[in-house]
């Protein structure tokens, strides 16, 4: 694997050691979590999230998976296939990773609160007693709330045209709720450097100072919110696909049917063109942004002006909106129609 931005080319064996070492560096550099913390990895069946779960386990972290079934079909059973990939990967973990800091499996409490059904976790069969036994938790949005993401999006103003906004809102709420209720301090997502650079590019084009100030590898925990971390933030998307190929991690190759024409993909293509002409351009763009932020380029004034949080009257999760949070307002508007 040739990584032109690092002026580094590695064989398969060294590449699959180099990637986890880079992830470990990021975890430590940005103080994401420690080996004692319980980490919930949001898995989608795609390359980044499955690779992340594999890497965290290989590094000896206590990481479980969470899959949210969104009920997206797209003519080829997108959600069903994504879930199948996640479950197959979870089952394969028994023999698929090596390395462990310490022994011990910890039972995770069953969900409390709203009684939303979470399926029994998928747990790999293993004969090895002294290591973390990762679990895959699954929640089906259509089963839990009665409607798939595209169905909800069709019925509310927020979803007009494309369901991505509704999807993002529901995923953020449910991931946070489940992490919180099941006792996970940290929620890890598979965002890679290309994802982060594309978001940064979009927010810079329109100078979304609030978003720029919040963007980073770690969003600290606060009352009712799990800490959110992006351990792959210094790795290229290309490297994550290569890692899966070399490690034999099977992932869903098909894209979400609603992602075609997405602005984020257009931004990624532009950045890839810059990268082709100038290796390291994406990396420099993102990492110099993080350094500029650290040096005070964006001060905290906007955060001081941010409205205070309070508990949503319906679900209890923190929100800045008076009364109900955006997630509950969404379902109230669905119920009215």
């Amino acid at each position, binding site marked *: 694997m040739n990584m032109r931005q690092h002026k580094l080319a590695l064989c398969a064996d060294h590449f699959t050691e180099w990637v986890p070492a880079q992830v470990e560096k990021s975890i430590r550099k940005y103080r994401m979590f420690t080996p004692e913390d319980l980490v919930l990895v949001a898995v989608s069946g795609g390359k980044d999230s499955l690779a992340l779960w594999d890497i965290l386990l290989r590094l000896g972290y206590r990481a479980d998976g969470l899959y949210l079934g969104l009920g997206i079909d797209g003519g080829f059973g997108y959600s069903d296939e994504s879930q199948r990939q996640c479950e197959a990967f979870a089952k394969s973990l028994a023999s698929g990773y090596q390395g462990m800091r310490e022994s011990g499996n910890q039972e995770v409490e069953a969900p409390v609160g709203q009684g939303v059904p979470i399926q029994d976790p998928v747990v790999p069969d293993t004969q090895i007693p002294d290591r973390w036994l990762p679990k895959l938790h699954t929640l089906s949005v259509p089963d839990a709330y009665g409607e798939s993401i595209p169905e909800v999006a069709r019925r509310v103003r927020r979803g007009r045209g494309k369901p991505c906004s509704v999807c993002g809102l529901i995923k953020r709420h449910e991931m946070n709720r489940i992490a919180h209720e099941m006792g996970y301090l940290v929620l890890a997502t598979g965002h890679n450097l290309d994802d982060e650079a594309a978001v940064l590019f979009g927010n810079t084009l329109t100078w979304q100072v609030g978003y720029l100030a919040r963007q980073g590898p770690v969003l600290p925990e606060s009352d009712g919110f799990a800490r959110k971390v992006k351990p792959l933030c210094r790795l290229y998307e290309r490297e994550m696909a290569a890692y899966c190929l070399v490690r034999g991690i099977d992932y869903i190759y098909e894209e979400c049917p609603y*992602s075609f024409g997405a602005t984020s993909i257009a931004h990624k293509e532009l950045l*890839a063109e810059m990268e082709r002409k100038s290796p390291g351009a994406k990396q420099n763009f993102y990492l110099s942004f993080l350094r500029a932020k650290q040096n005070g380029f964006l001060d905290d004034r906007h955060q001081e002006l941010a409205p205070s949080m309070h508990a949503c009257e319906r679900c209890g999760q923190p929100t800045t909106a008076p009364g109900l949070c955006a997630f509950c307002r969404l379902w109230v508007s669905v119920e009215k129609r």
Partner: protein
Amino acid sequence: MPKIFYRDKEWEVPTNITVRDAIKKGDLNPETVLATLDGKLITEDIHLKADDVVKLVAVISGG
């Protein structure tokens, strides 16, 4: 001649061409794909043989 497959596209390239140049012949940016031969990842500097069948894997995903 070596054959290149990418999604629903396929094209032939001259023997002994590098993988990187074979990708460019398909109007693709080499930064956005990975090349595999017999299911294994190959590097862009490899010269293709006459009967090679290369499958390209997209690396850009949305979200």
